[in-house]
């Protein structure tokens, strides 16, 4: 292997796994990736600076648009941080409705990812099935929140829409249907050879690396670290709803697939439990538009991992400082580790897309293709993920 030249291969910035701009430079020796460097920032929108010039309520809607998939977690975290500063409890029913919104969000996001992952490894049948069933969730989200993508249900002091009994009934019916289907897909993920052959032993992130690099969400749970903000730092109604923190310890892409599939089943149970336990009462309290000086930290478990917002107020209706950290940025440090061959662990160029996709990257949240560098020839070229797929699928 050492006799072969090392090449730089840039993948990106356009059209990586999830059609968002990012650049990964892979250093390759022949077919083997021996190192990688990630460059984010192609999507930086300056939302934190913009937020300092908008009122808290306006920021809530900007926050929801930080991510097109898991927007509700950002609105929730900002609302939580602001409520902490004001120091008022919100109605219990609102907590339950927020929990249902967060969990529906998780289900649709994990289903979306499962489809993308299946597509990345060339298993398009699973991709089609999963995305078809994701529509069930999207429809029920539209039914409850009024929108498919930006729910706009969380507000400072509670939620903006109630879940009436007939809608709760419809939601439960969909959850029953989905549970059946998910059990089938779980079986498929465990038994299907095409999937296991592409995912087993690929994208290894050892437990100690996951801890040291502060990885979050399914990425760290697939490395055997039981870090879940819902369990550790119970917010909304998670303190009253029992659920399992799913962990796997094979540390590879298979583990990340199974963590997410199992989490969907957990989420279905959480939603069922939440509807059963949801108390009657008001859904919001009116809180002052002008927030007293202070600071607050809001965080929740997004589908991709821990989201944390820091808000510092100065007694006006606008935040003095609003800091957002989306989960993908926390997982970005782990990507070069997963893409580095060492000892018996060998990374092939063909595994780059699925390895990168396995952290469920969301570039618009983080900010922000892959460059390959042949080290000995000093040659460098750019491939998009779709090119890699085209080249390697043909073989």
């Amino acid at each position, binding site marked *: 292997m050492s006799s072969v030249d090392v090449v730089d291969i840039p993948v990106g910035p356009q059209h990586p796994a999830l059609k968002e701009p990012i650049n990964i430079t892979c250093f390759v020796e022949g077919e083997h990736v021996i190192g990688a460097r990630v460059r984010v920032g192609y999507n930086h929108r300056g939302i934190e600076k913009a937020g300092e010039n908008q009122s808290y309520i306006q920021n809530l809607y900007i926050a929801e648009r930080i991510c097109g998939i898991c927007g509700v977690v950002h609105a929730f975290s900002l609302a939580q941080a602001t409520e*902490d500063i004001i120091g008022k409890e919100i109605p219990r029913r609102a907590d339950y409705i927020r929990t249902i919104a967060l969990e529906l969000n998780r289900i649709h996001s994990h289903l979306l990812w499962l489809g993308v992952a299946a597509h990345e490894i060339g298993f398009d049948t699973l991709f089609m099935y999963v995305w078809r069933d994701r529509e069930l969730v999207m429809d029920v989200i539209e039914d409850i929140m009024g929108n498919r993508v930006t729910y706009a249900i969380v507000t400072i002091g509670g939620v903006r829409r109630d879940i009436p009994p007939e809608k709760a009934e419809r939601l439960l019916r969909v959850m029953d249907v989905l549970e059946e289907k998910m059990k089938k897909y779980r079986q498929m993920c465990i038994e299907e050879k095409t999937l296991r052959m592409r995912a087993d032993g690929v994208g290894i992130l050892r437990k100690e690396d996951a801890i040291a690099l502060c990885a979050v969400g399914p990425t760290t749970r697939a490395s055997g670290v039981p*870090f879940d903000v819902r369990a*550790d*730092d119970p917010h909304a109604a998670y303190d009253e709803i029992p659920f399992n923190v799913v962990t796997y310890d094979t540390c590879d892409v298979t583990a990340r697939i199974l963590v997410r599939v199992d989490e969907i089943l957990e989420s279905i149970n959480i939603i069922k439990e939440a509807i059963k336990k949801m108390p009657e009462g008001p859904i919001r309290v009116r809180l002052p538009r002008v927030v007293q000086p202070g600071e607050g930290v809001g965080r929740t478990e997004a589908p991709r991992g821990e989201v*944390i917002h820091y808000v510092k107020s100065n007694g006006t209706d606008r935040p003095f*400082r609003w800091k957002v950290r989306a989960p993908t940025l926390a997982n970005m440090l782990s990507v070069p580790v997963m893409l580095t061959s060492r000892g018996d662990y060998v990374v092939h160029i063909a595994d780059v897309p699925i390895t990168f996709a396995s952290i469920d990257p969301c570039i618009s949240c983080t900010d922000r293709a892959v460059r390959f560098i042949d080290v000995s020839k000093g040659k460098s070229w750019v491939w998009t993920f779709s090119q890699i797929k085209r080249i390697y699928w043909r073989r």
Partner: protein
Amino acid sequence: MTLEEEVVERLKAKFGDRILEAKVQRARRIFVTVDRSTYKEVVKFLKDEIGVTHVSTMSGVDTLERFEVIPHFSYKGIVISVRSIIPRDDPVIDTISDVIPGALFYEKEIHEMFGIDIKGHPDLSHLELPDDWPEGLYPLRKDVKLEDLFKLTKEER
């Protein structure tokens, strides 16, 4: 005694007056204020003695009188925010990435957004801003107005 109070007590017992302020805001939220000279020792103490391994993020704040760098650590569900105070005319702080490697990207972000020099950081290249971003323009500083940034976009592109 709750776990939050215990962490605060242990910090106070170890550092005494050098902890300028330590309060438990509510369950699972701790805010500690230190000077930048004590900052790294506190982080080391949190890691070695208390067992903190996870830094959730680092916030920078420009209050116009001073800079603040606030790493938010996560420990058994508690968010420990350690505010370190940096004078505005000498924006330098020690890196904590050698104690907790997960802080590497967050320190880069603080460097490019606030112009705070991170002493001992291995690579302070841009994280989110473009490579051709004008030197010496730190967008999240309070004296940089939105209009200045808008102008930049129009002129440059």
